């Protein structure tokens, strides 16, 4: 497993849970830098990858969107969270019942 540059992860152990206003990162996610010596090899790989990605077949968004929509419609009735399955059939909805065996 190669490490991309130095990728030390420092983390802060928060003494308390973070407050609503402080959006601090709970551990430091560093962006790594490419190691200098293999710049050429790395660039060649980037170009190769871009050539590959440029060559794939794509469909129009209108077609792709229509297909996504069709899938939703076709499966809508089988989606319990969408249709709101009644309490009798959803195992999570009824309250816990204690029964004597």
């Amino acid at each position, binding site marked *: 497993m190669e490490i991309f540059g130095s990728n030390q992860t420092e983390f802060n152990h928060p003494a308390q*849970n973070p407050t609503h206003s402080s*959006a601090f990162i709970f551990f430091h996610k560093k962006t790594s830098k490419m190691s200098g010596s293999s710049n050429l090899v790395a660039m060649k790989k980037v170009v190769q990858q871009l050539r590959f990605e440029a060559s794939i077949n*794509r469909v129009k968004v209108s077609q792709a969107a229509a297909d*996504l929509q069709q899938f939703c419609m076709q499966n809508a009735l089988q989606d319990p969270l969408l249709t709101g399955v009644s309490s009798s059939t959803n195992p999570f909805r009824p309250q816990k019942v204690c029964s004597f065996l």
Partner: protein
Amino acid sequence: MRSPLIPEMATQEVQLNETLVHLKTESETLKSKLEEERAKLHDVELHQVAEKVEGLGQFVMKTRRTLKGHGNKVLCMDWCKDKRRIVSSSQDGKVIVWDAFTTNKEHAVTMPCTWVMACAYAPSGCAVACGGLDNKCSVYPLSLDKNENLAAKKKSVAMHTNYLSACSFTNSDMQILTSSGDGTCALWDVESGQLLQSFHGHAADVLCLDLAPSETGNTFVSGGCDKKANVWDMRSGQCIQSFETHESDINSVRYYPSGDAFASGSDDATCRLYDLRADREVAIYSKESIIFGVSSVDFSLSGRLLFAGYNDYTINVWDVLKGTRVSILFGHENRVSTLRVSPDGTAFCTGSWDHTLRIWA
């Protein structure tokens, strides 16, 4: 100005620089060509196509179960295929297996490290995998004997050079896919611990991954701190598609149920939908009032609803087709860190920094 002692070295250095410049130019040209090709097919927006679709009514979703028992932040959870068991992992190193119907704890393991950021249930239901700051992914077979010490049977499968951020079994108990802070993903054989394939391409920590629905073939998507979501071929190790439209770390990725698209959640407070056949982002789920990062996303069974957990303690439910928010759910008392819809789609579970898990339906 240096004057090299050997003239050939000077020529070689010049050639090297020329080639590098040439490659850089080619990469820029290819990038613009890629943008051009993608733009050509951008003839309409998803929500425009969905204008004629009936709007969704009011949703009444409440917490139906609260799972209490973790001593610190819940970081990850996964459902068992039996639709009732759940495995969860926490900052304090504990991994717990619950029966979500009864809220009973069935198993508990203490890991040798803190911040167990990843956990997954095996398809058979007979084992769980977990890992975190120990840089490893370990598999624990679940025993029916409550007295048996699970830790004794632990098997170390994956070894990364930085923290484990996510793990998932493939179609069987035999292979595990992992992602790591070391910038790579990897596929491992559980029995031997052998590395089967590694996936290089992210320029920073990889934070999440999701396997394509089995009918769609051997691919998976990963998201990272480099703001990229990459789609990979599991057999060749090649990155087949890459998307970079988020403005910050991607914390969660999840395939649309048909396998033709995937959603992502990011620290930039948005969720986005990327269509694989159109090869572009087709929807953004955001509101000006939502300013906190998204930690986790998942679809309902039909793909019409997208559930997203946020760092502002809430869950927003989005209409995937229309791009609008249909519901906002309150209940957790700290960040929502993980969210998964149950295998039969009857409920979804969230884990939070408030030490609890909640089942919503």
